[in-house]
């Protein structure tokens, strides 16, 4: 058997359609077939999510140059088990089908490259049978060559080609030779395009056995799964399984934050240095302030979050690539079903603990449209990483007596509160809005455990970082700029006792703070005082909430501006103490621990993220659901904060 074996099935014929267009190669395949690995091997990290003419759905795409010089476009469609079975058009499979249909209708040159897992050939051949009926040229990319060869088995590529009527290549996505092998096959298709393979009936199972040289004896088949089986005996055990799961999640989150903390601090330090440089160059005027405190501060906040986002993305990708993710969905399915969700909601809910924006897109893997919508609507309640600085500030301010353990436990309690909120919200939304019908039953493939490929994981991480910068970062910078205007441009006279009420311990820019006290944001904050007084908030906290309405990442820096503390980004410095000792016009303390608790709880529930709103609008194609999310989360935040504030006062913390 030669290295890369592909056989042309017959005579060539001109491909109808716009002859001058670049060829579009569409990667199609079952989930877990190694499609993404192969796509990464072909395109590196150049891929981006594209919206392109003729196709209204998002898909990963990249441009490549063939060795022969032609430029092609490669699209990675979402994994799909079948193109014929009825699926919801909004789900991953519906999207794959729609994209393929549109590409076919566009008339441009298209080549379907189906990725088949050679360790699971019969299943993939089921999809092949469907693809042959689409009237498009087909190329079979049979993967996992390294795994099969390690067992001493081979794939008879000629038999596949003869039965299916499409050229086939046997590769290993992990090997460096896969890229040239696949591109050679594509080039061959380009040179002498095969006519669309006419549908030939074949039995996937029989063909798989024929192609896999000799049907492996039962013992060899079991050997393939021995490692998976022994791991599953623990990881899917009714008791050990959930314990291992919780342990893994704890290690994951703790590890990520332990590493991300110093990284963020380092970034913060660098930004301080840049800010100082800007001050030296531009001085202290209004424009310089806008650039430094509006734009740069916003951008700095974004960059400081990047280490966390990237690390959590890497962790998630490792979990998925190793095969453990499906086990997590299996373990959680019953519990999630209690709240009207299901095992497939596990991935988006887990991602939401990093950032809700990509998590909302990840709900496309949920087959049941109602379950998908419900998951999207409760995602804003998961404790995303942007809440952490706000929590840290509030805990340092109102619970200064806590040691490291106490702080960790408080964080844990807040995470738990977020999860509880998510569950309750899902149950309530289902019971009221959707007149609950139970979600589609779970059917989920459990892939064998695999060693994740580092290259692919880093690729995904890079994409995640780019996406965060593009979708969330831009919003944060924009909100920061708008906030600067609201906080810095004085409107009318301030309150008579304004400056006296702000007992800054180290006023570096008292003039700035006085300006802020007369700003539009301050006026709105004061106007809102009657509304938020039952929660223990005053106008300054209201301004902080106005600031974090667009992006909760900006809470800490906004509070820094309000209380006259510069550089409140990475190291909180004097800010907690300043807030704690802030006084009202009459000299009494402005805030009690009860206020702190209420504010913490407010942050647990309120959807303070325009990026999330935007992502919801995109996924649900409308403003109704984003508006609903804003509405219900703020109502819940207000109600919960009220209960906590009044309750804390009863217990003497007021």
């Amino acid at each position, binding site marked *: 058997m030669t290295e890369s074996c592909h056989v042309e099935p017959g005579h060539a014929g001109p491909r109808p359609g716009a002859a001058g267009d670049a060829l579009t190669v569409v990667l199609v395949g079952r989930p877990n077939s190694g499609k993404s690995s192969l796509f990464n091997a072909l395109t590196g990290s150049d891929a981006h999510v594209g919206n392109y003419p003729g196709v209204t759905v998002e898909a990963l795409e990249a441009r490549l140059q063939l060795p022969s010089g032609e430029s092609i476009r490669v699209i990675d469609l979402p994994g799909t088990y079948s193109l014929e079975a*009825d699926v919801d058009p909004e789900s991953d499979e519906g999207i794959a089908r729609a994209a393929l249909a549109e590409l076919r209708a566009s008339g441009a040159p298209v080549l379907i490259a189906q990725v088949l897992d050679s*360790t699971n050939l019969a299943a993939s051949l089921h999809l092949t049978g469907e693809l042959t009926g689409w009237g498009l040229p087909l190329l079979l990319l049979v993967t996992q060559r390294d795994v099969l060869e390690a067992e001493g088995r081979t794939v008879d590529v000629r038999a596949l080609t003869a039965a299916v009527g499409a050229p086939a290549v046997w590769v290993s996505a992990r090997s460096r030779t896969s890229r040239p092998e696949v591109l050679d096959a594509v080039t061959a298709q380009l040179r002498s395009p095969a006519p669309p393979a006419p549908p030939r009936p074949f039995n996937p199972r029989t063909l798989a056995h024929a192609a896999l040289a000799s049907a492996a004896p039962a013992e060899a*088949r079991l050997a393939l799964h021995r490692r998976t089986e022994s791991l599953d005996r623990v990881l899917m055990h009714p008791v050990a399984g959930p314990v291992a799961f919780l342990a893994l999640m704890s290690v994951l989150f703790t590890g990520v934050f332990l590493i991300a903390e110093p990284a963020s601090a380092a970034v913060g330090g660098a930004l301080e240095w840049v800010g100082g440089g800007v001050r030296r160059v531009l001085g202290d005027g209004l424009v310089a302030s806008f650039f430094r405190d509006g734009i740069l501060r916003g951008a700095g906040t974004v960059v400081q979050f990047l280490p966390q986002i990237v690390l959590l993305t890497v962790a998630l990708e490792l979990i998925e690539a190793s095969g453990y993710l499906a086990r997590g969905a299996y373990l959680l*399915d019953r519990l999630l079903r209690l709240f009207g969700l299901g095992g497939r909601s596990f991935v988006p809910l887990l991602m939401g603990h990093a950032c809700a924006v990509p998590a909302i897109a990840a709900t496309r893997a949920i087959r049941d449209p109602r379950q998908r919508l419900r998951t999207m609507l409760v995602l804003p309640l998961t404790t995303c990483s942007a809440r952490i600085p706000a929590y840290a500030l509030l805990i340092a301010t109102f619970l200064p007596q806590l040691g490291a353990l106490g702080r960790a436990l408080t964080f844990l309690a807040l995470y738990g509160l977020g999860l509880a909120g998510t569950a309750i919200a899902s149950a309530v939304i289902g019971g009221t809005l959707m007149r609950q019908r139970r979600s589609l039953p*779970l059917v989920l*493939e459990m892939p064998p455990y695999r060693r994740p490929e580092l290259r692919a994981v880093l690729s995904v991480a890079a994409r995640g970082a780019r996406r965060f910068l593009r979708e969330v970062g831009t919003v944060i910078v924009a909100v920061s700029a708008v906030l600067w205007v609201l906080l810095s441009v004085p409107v009318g006279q301030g309150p008579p006792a304004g400056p006296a009420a702000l007992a800054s311990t180290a006023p570096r820019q008292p003039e700035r703070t006085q300006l802020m006290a007369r700003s539009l944001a301050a006026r709105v904050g004061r106007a809102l005082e009657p509304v938020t007084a039952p929660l223990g908030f005053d106008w300054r906290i209201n301004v902080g909430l106005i600031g974090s309405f667009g992006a909760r990442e900006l809470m800490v820096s906004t509070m820094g501006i309000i209380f006259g503390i510069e550089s409140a980004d990475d190291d909180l410095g004097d800010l907690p103490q300043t807030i704690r000792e802030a006084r009202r016009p009459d000299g009494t303390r402005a805030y009690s621990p009860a206020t702190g608790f209420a504010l913490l709880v407010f942050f647990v529930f309120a959807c303070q993220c325009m990026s999330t709103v935007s992502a919801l609008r995109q996924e649900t194609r409308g403003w109704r659901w984003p508006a609903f999310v804003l509405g219900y989360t703020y109502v819940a935040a207000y109600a919960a904060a009220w209960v906590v504030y009044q309750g804390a006062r009863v217990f003497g913390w007021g």
Partner: protein
Amino acid sequence: MPPAPARDLVPPPRDLAGWPLGVWARIVGFDIAGAERRWLEAIGLAPDEDILVLRRAPFRGPLHLRTSEGNELALDRRYAVRIQVAARGGGR
């Protein structure tokens, strides 16, 4: 040729949810409507497919299955009660 199992050791046909662990079964019937059934076939649960129940999650949770091709699936119990299986006959 391996001896056929003694009659009283072979479980009678029943739904998949009630099938004993570790005993191979063959799918003989589906009580599931067209579209969902086609999807189940696509993912690997087809008539005449051989299935092994590896474990069941507690509290009527999903089943962990393996097919004769070596595929493993998590299957909701609500589907498992609507799939009829019988003992796999003979050697394979």
